[in-house]
């Protein structure tokens, strides 16, 4: 019986992984060869998807990107024993895209069956949780503090300080909330974890519960991720059945219960306070801070709200120690960052590495330029609210501080590449349009500023007092930046103003540009 691994990550499904798995099964049956097809998450090298792997005495051998049409030739080539074929990439972990990575958060993703408890345990699963139970809440929080882990959702706030605040606040009930409302275009790391290694998130949240004294957790997953929701819901059921969730975890005095909630298509619910309102059953309206959620969060109880990636970093930190994690990184950005290379890029996917690469090394070195083969013109980092960088800024180191110093943000780790056909005025206009569609409506700079912003950009492009209107746009952006309640209105100026600053030639009045 040969084991064959075919991803069921949504991005692999989008490229035909289900049909491929069915064809492999049918072909094996027709040829009388015994195979077991194991569905995994994705390794994150999406340019190789669907990536089929075969278990051989030499380790797993990968073939990709595979298609239904190529299945007979794969069998003819003896791929079940690792035979030569044009699609053969050798051992995936030795592939250039994967070999250079430092996989702490994504150590298991794409390798194990995401719903196999045995597979999870065989690759260091539950070790962090066991240690947290051993050392108790205070030392658990201390490890996270020592790791220097900063919130991977985008804001980069030190996770340990957040946890300590909630731990030090006494209340009859506390909550752990996982923000899995990964709405930023160009990001997919949360989705990959929920589909490819869901027990790691369950373990991270349980450790957080022990650390702060909470017995209940919620995962708020966006509805655009139906597959992630489905896999994660199954994982919760399996973990509960096996006693990894429930009243006495590992026979200890600690109890933790977990529930999955699906969002409903509102981008702003990725903002932590509006997510809490949404969980409570209200419109997802941003709350003013203070009070901090760590003091008064879900149902006015002390609440830790962390991103998926922050929580999934925690089991490693507990298992191997805060110092181990802190030894990776650069400056005040410690540990590893799962960078998501996306858009018009040749080798796109998830690249987890210690902080400190330059943007150019990511785009040109790892991504190897555009998918279209045309020159790179702009790179948007940090989602729809992140700045556009021109190639002249490719020496910027990829860390929180260096990006902030260049009027940008690394956000949730998305890096979207554009070739030279991009119209940057259109992208700036889209940023305002998106903000207008998704604004929760609570604060004026965001609600009205985004609508006016789009109108002002239109006037610039129509040639109506372009210089005056560009000045007005900058003024409006400043109002939005400093006057908005949350990052939606507050950060939209990043893409808009970076487009104006670095790609000014695209903001020429259109009739005039055409005449040139």
């Amino acid at each position, binding site marked *: 019986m040969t084991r064959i691994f075919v991803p069921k990550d949504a991005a692999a499904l989008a490229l035909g992984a289900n049909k491929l798995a069915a064809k492999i099964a049918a072909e094996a049956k027709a040829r009388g060869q015994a195979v077991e097809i194991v569905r995994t998450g994705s390794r994150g090298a999406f340019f190789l998807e669907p990536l089929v792997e075969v278990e051989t005495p030499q380790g797993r051998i990968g073939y990709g990107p595979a298609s239904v049409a190529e299945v007979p030739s794969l069998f003819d080539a003896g791929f079940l024993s690792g035979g030569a074929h044009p699609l053969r990439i050798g051992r995936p972990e030795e592939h250039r895209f994967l070999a250079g990575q430092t996989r702490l958060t994504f150590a298991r993703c794409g390798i194990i069956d995401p719903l196999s408890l045995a597979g999870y345990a065989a690759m260091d699963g539950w070790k962090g949780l066991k240690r947290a139970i051993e050392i108790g809440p205070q030392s658990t929080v201390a490890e996270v503090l020592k790791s220097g882990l900063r919130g991977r959702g985008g804001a980069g706030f030190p996770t340990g300080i957040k946890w300590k605040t909630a731990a030090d606040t006494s209340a009859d009930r506390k909550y752990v909330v996982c923000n899995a409302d*990964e709405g*930023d275009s*160009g990001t997919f790391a949360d*989705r990959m974890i929920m589909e490819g290694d869901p027990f790691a998130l369950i373990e991270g949240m349980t450790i957080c519960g022990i650390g702060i004294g909470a017995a209940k957790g919620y995962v708020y997953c966006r509805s655009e991720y139906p597959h992630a929701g489905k896999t994660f819901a199954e994982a919760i059921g399996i973990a509960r059945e096996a006693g990894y969730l429930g009243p006495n975890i590992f026979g200890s005095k600690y109890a933790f219960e977990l529930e999955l909630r699906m969002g409903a*298509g509102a981008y702003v619910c990725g903002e932590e306070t509006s997510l809490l309102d949404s969980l409570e059953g209200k419109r997802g309206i941003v709350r003013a801070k203070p009070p901090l959620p760590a003091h008064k969060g879900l149902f006015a109880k002390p609440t830790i709200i962390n991103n998926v990636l922050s929580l999934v970093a925690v089991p490693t930190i507990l298992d191997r120690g805060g110092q181990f994690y802190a030894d990776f990184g650069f400056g005040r950005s410690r540990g590893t960052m799962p960078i998501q290379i996306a858009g018009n890029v040749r080798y*796109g996917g998830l690249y987890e590495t210690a902080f400190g690469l330059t943007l150019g090394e990511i785009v040109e070195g790892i991504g190897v330029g555009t998918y279209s083969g045309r020159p790179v013109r702009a790179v948007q980092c940090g989602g*729809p609210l992140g700045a556009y960088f021109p190639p002249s800024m490719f020496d910027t180191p990829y860390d929180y501080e260096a990006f902030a110093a260049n009027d940008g943000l690394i956000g949730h780790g998305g890096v979207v590449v*554009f070739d030279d056909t991009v119209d940057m005025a259109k992208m700036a206009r889209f940023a305002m349009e998106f903000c207008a569609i998704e604004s929760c409506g609570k604060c004026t700079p965001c609600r009205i500023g985004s609508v006016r912003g789009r109108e002002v950009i239109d006037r610039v492009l129509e040639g109506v007092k372009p210089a005056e209107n560009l000045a007005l746009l900058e003024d409006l952006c400043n109002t939005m930046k400093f006057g908005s309640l949350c990052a939606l209105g507050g950060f939209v100026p990043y893409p808009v103003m970076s487009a104006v600053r670095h790609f000014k030639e695209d903001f020429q009045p259109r009739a005039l540009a055409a005449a040139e």
Partner: protein
Amino acid sequence: MPQASAWNAERAREIIAEHIGLEGPMLPILHGLLEEFGCVSGEAVPLIADALNLTRAEVHGTITFYHDFRSEPCGVHLLQLCRGEACQSMGSEELAAKILGKLGLAWKGTTKDGVLTVEPVYCLGLCASSPTALLDGEPLGRLNENKVAEALEEVHIR
């Protein structure tokens, strides 16, 4: 895509009752109604308001805040084309314009025979395989006009 049932107040009350014990039951209730009826119609508002001890205005405000809770059912099939920046970098706007043009639809429009609705969606997390879409919840990547046509044909739309 499973065919949605017609409005039935009794069934709606059952769905509300199934979720009412949860903390913050509103969204689970609305998702339950959406799944059953293909939309969250105005008729559900007083039932939810009554069960959760809220005003009808509060319930209406919540339903209409979220893009997912449509007030009318969509077509038999739903094509959600991604308009996120990553997909735009691979020409999703041009692709969407062609598809909508061919079908004679605007965003969120439904074909006259009621078979297909086309909606925009802002990121599906498939950003290294752009342009992308969901057709009846199933992901599609590296799209072009032909691939969209093939996918639609598979669900018997020509």
